[in-house]
């Protein structure tokens, strides 16, 4: 199997592997942040509802949508930052020299765009996949770990 040439995925002179690692780290931290946020909100809400039930009070479980707030913050920041990083990659060809002249006269016209966009686009795609996976996981946790009688009739969809 051919090894991935990280250097071909970043502007010349930049360390593609290091950039990929940084993006990976940001994705990991975003995932961790999302998990912690959701679990903290979910467990807190569940505990409150269970305590209320024990006291004979009706206190419905917050909706799934309400529990999601801020869980995707890391991915949202990445969604803003990665396009800026792609723009930065392009603009780097104007820094110190005009290497853009060389890149724009290459026989392979895709090289410039690959170097500017590949890693940020991969990061964005990875972010979307991870965010969807997290949503699925959160949904599963919400459905499986919330006693049905505690949800206010479909409240978990966020519709009271």
């Amino acid at each position, binding site marked *: 199997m051919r090894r991935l040439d990280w250097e071909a995925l970043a*502007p*010349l*002179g*930049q360390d593609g592997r290091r950039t990929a690692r940084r993006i990976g780290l940001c994705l990991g931290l975003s995932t961790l942040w999302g998990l912690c946020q959701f679990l903290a909100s979910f467990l807190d809400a569940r505990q409150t509802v269970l305590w209320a039930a024990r006291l004979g009070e009706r206190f419905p479980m917050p909706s799934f949508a309400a529990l999601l707030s801020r869980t995707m913050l890391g991915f949202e920041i990445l969604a803003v930052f990665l396009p800026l990083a792609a723009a930065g990659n392009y603009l780097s060809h104007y*820094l*110190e*020299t*005009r*290497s*853009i*002249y*060389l890149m*724009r*006269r*290459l*026989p*392979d*016209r895709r*090289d410039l765009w690959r170097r500017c966009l590949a890693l940020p686009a991969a990061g964005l795609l990875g972010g979307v996949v991870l965010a969807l996976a997290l949503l699925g996981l959160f949904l599963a946790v919400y459905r499986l770990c919330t006693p049905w009688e505690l949800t206010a009739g479909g409240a978990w969809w966020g519709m009271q």
Partner: protein
Amino acid sequence: MLELKNLYKDYRAGHISPQKALDGVSVAIGPGEIVGLFGENGAGKTTLMKCILGLIRYRGEVLLDGEPVTRRNIARLSFATCEHSFFPALTAEGHRDFYRMHFPRWREKRFRALLEFFSLPANRALRHFSTGQKNQFEVILALSQGADYILMDEPFAGNDLFNREDFYKVLLGILEPTETVVLSTHLLEEVERFVSRALLLRRGKLVGDASTLDLEERGGSLTAYVKETYGYEPDRVSRALDRLTEGEEEP
């Protein structure tokens, strides 16, 4: 053959009426020519080169052996610019690898020889080179790419005289008969012995086109031809000085 047919280029800045950078330039440059492109600042020299390379939009036609310049034949053109088009964080070796990957006619032997001739370090990032070394490396890349038409835009700005002289000699020594150089420069007297043809631009128009051989046969020189074409007045300075001093009274 590199043919430029009716090239027009306007620059617009805000609401100011468009400036004509190129105004109907038509010229054909054949294989093996060493062409000097002359003109005052803003005459359109750099714009012309950028049009040839497709780096900016223009009206008109640029043909390489009858074909428009596209990705299929653009490797036949190389470019050395005083703005530098290399990557500052990359080493000379790194550039070689990149050029070799993209330009199949890369001239390894020439690259090595020129690098050695100018004593340029192969493994130091280019941003640590001196200005002169950067210029040299820029030209080395353009010469080693394996292009048929080598465009150079003020490539020696910042190099000392001896350095430039060396380069002209090396250039004459290494160029193959089919390789064409288009050299834009202000150093008219320096390149006079070196170019085979002179193209003169003024305010975007081609105002002169002469072979240096023809000029020599007619007993003239390139410098005289350029001065004549641009309407240079030899007594301009003395007249100006006279005007400046005519009102002054003796103490």
